């Protein structure tokens, strides 16, 4: 038990769309499929509601990984929201890489309301990958510097 006290616990923020992925997370729960407690879910109506600023904010505040989950392409409750999310994140992830955040700390995944097992699998996998990378360096906010 001693060893576990100092074990690195990553902080992971998961943005889940209300219609597919949040429901998928609920299904993972009602199917009792576990994934690390390090993952904390924020409910948004659609993956396209995820403003890149939210992700930057998370990294500023010490998140070790951020994952955005939406409906599968073609299945978006709002028809096209997940396509916007995908394109925005592609651009953002390149920027993050430029800022020195490992590409593996961010991810976009499609999880439907029927895919409880996939949700758990994705979260286990992602949490494992982030854990392996170790603690992230907080992004600085220049406006806060003297």
């Amino acid at each position, binding site marked *: 038990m001693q060893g576990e006290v100092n074990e690195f616990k990553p*902080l992971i*923020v998961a943005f889940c769309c*209300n*219609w*597919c992925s*949040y*429901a998928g*997370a*609920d299904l*993972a*729960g*009602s199917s*009792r*499929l*576990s*994934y690390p*407690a390090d993952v*904390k*879910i*924020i*409910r*948004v*109506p*659609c993956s*396209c*509601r*995820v*403003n*890149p*600023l*939210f992700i930057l*904010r*998370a990294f500023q*505040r*010490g*998140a070790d990984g951020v994952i955005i989950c939406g*409906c599968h392409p*073609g*299945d*978006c*409750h*709002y*028809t*096209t*929201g997940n396509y*916007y999310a995908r394109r*925005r994140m592609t651009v953002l992830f390149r920027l993050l890489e430029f800022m020195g955040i490992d590409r593996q700390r961010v991810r976009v995944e499609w999880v*439907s*309301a*029927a*895919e409880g097992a996939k949700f*758990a699998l994705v979260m286990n996998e992602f949490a494992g990958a982030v854990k392996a990378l170790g603690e992230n360096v*907080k992004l600085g906010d220049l406006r806060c510097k003297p």
Partner: protein
Amino acid sequence: MQKIGVFVCWCGTNIAATVDVAAVADAMRSEPGVVYAADYQYMCSEVGQQRLIAAVREHALTGVVICACSPRMHEQTFRRAAERAGLNPYMVEIANIREQCSWIHKDKAVGTPKAIALARAAVAKVLKNAPLTAGESPVAKRALVIGGGIAGIQTALDVAEAGYEVDIVEKSPTIGGRMAQLDKTFPTLDCSACILTPKMVEAAQSPNIELLTYSEVEKVAGFVGNFTVTIRKKARYVDTNRCTGCAECVAKCPARKGKNEFNMGLDNRSAIYIPFAQAIPNVATIDASQCIKLRTGKCGICEKVCSAGAIDYNQRDEVIERRYGAIVAATGFRPISLEKFGEYAYQESPDVVTSLEFERILNAAGPTKGQLVRPSDGKHPHEIVFIQCVGSRCSEDAGKGKTYCSKICCMYTAKHAMLVREKYPDVRVRVFYIDVRTPGKNFDEFYRRAAEQYGVEYVKGMVGKVWRQNGKLMVQGSDLLNDEQLLIPADMVVLAAAIEPEPGARALATMLTASMDTNDFFSEAHPKLRPVESPTAGVFLSGACQGPKDIPETVAQAGAAAIKVVGLLSKDRLVTNPCVAHSNELLCNGCSQCEKVCPYGAITYSEREVVDRGVKDVRRLASVNEAVCRGCGACTVACPSGAMDLKGFANRQIMAEVDAICRAK
């Protein structure tokens, strides 16, 4: 100054076993803004709700956080309770500490800190909440049913009976669907047409039902209560108002090589055709791909023989647009393609047929006039082998078939076997089965009757291969109970092919923004408690498009879907979702980015006068039509100036959640 109350639910032991609920409540007491925190066994119970109401009043709470099950379960319950206490319902936030915490973590050491983190995030969010008022939108008092099989017909009849207008859109020239193709129905063996055609006639005669046959849905816009649907009425090249259904044209048409869809392609039909005798509407349709006149300009015989003058070679597709309050998907099923099951020789031998083809062979109006003969040579068969589970219950990695049980095959195979033995006692009938699944009223008794009274031989095992040899079909399979491998020289083999959703359902689901499962069946809003509703408001499900089902189940579900439609149409106005976008006109720079990404066309621009820091100015500004906006938030991210925000999921609310979650660091 906000005053927040936090309520931690035990959910019996569902939460309390792996989350220390008292510790969560305790931790919340020291959160900024929290003036009250408590835990209780069942917050969703009446007593639990009363406690919430009492606390709101006693402590003059301005916002409430419930730490309980998923908001998808009880958000509405708690919003209503808050309203009863005089609080704006949108001042309630839920921390999901059951599905996303207690149920997935094994003990309190892990569960409690996570529950606290989730509760903190909810508190942080509710502090930034603002009261919201839902708007209202009118309900179009008309329903659309897509699919004219027994599911669609029954739903339409029930909706019409309740006094509402309903349209049935059917892609083929007649309503009736799969049930019209069936000979007899289990477990009573009554004739399918005899019980279906009265319903078809009733649908045609009902003043509240309009049949749009040979038509397809092309576009769906709008939302619950206010759908605008574009429907293409395909050209029949026949004036349906003039055609009397005399079928003179059908008899004289020289192009007779069209595959007869009604008989599963077992025989041919003419280019101008009426699908079957009891078709509704009973009018002819020209298959343009087969018609000599339409292809080459020569012929024109049907026009000459038609005494009603109904033939119109110049007819064009007609596109209409209608408004509906509710939409029902009833698109049905088809048997799967058997191309990946070559071991059963379906492609090689005409004497290997699917069960639906066999149904047509048994039917008096079928290609053999109901005579049981081999399709290859018209001879009477002496030995028939039925193979169950062809393409059903396959593993995902098998690369063929479906993972689910098709549900109806055990029963229809017992029916077929029984019908054969009843009419032709000289025919030996064997059924290869893996399991016989007959959970239905009088179903198992039916199957036992096939075995015990009709002498159908049930063989526990599976056929490995079928091939033609010396004019017979050699069927090699295992008889597991007798521990032997059988080699049966059979005359016919009938395959219980798995069923799958009609292929057009996928495109329709996309138009309806209704979700589907991995097998392309429509998903229900809740597998147990909302089985006939799609997760998309105003879209309902009827029949096999939601999953394999037999006729009694389909009819029951069709009726259930109808009452949901009636419940919706009986309202004059619907409360709209207040979580919609809005633009801060002082920040808007008129760039139109939001307008471009809006999937609903809810954003418009106009020149308006604003007063910015005391200065009057006329600017080009975005405004959101709240009745049309669905609240996805695409515009909020597209907006470069930060003018666009989403009520209920505002930037500052989500930022506050992020901050709260990250506070652990």
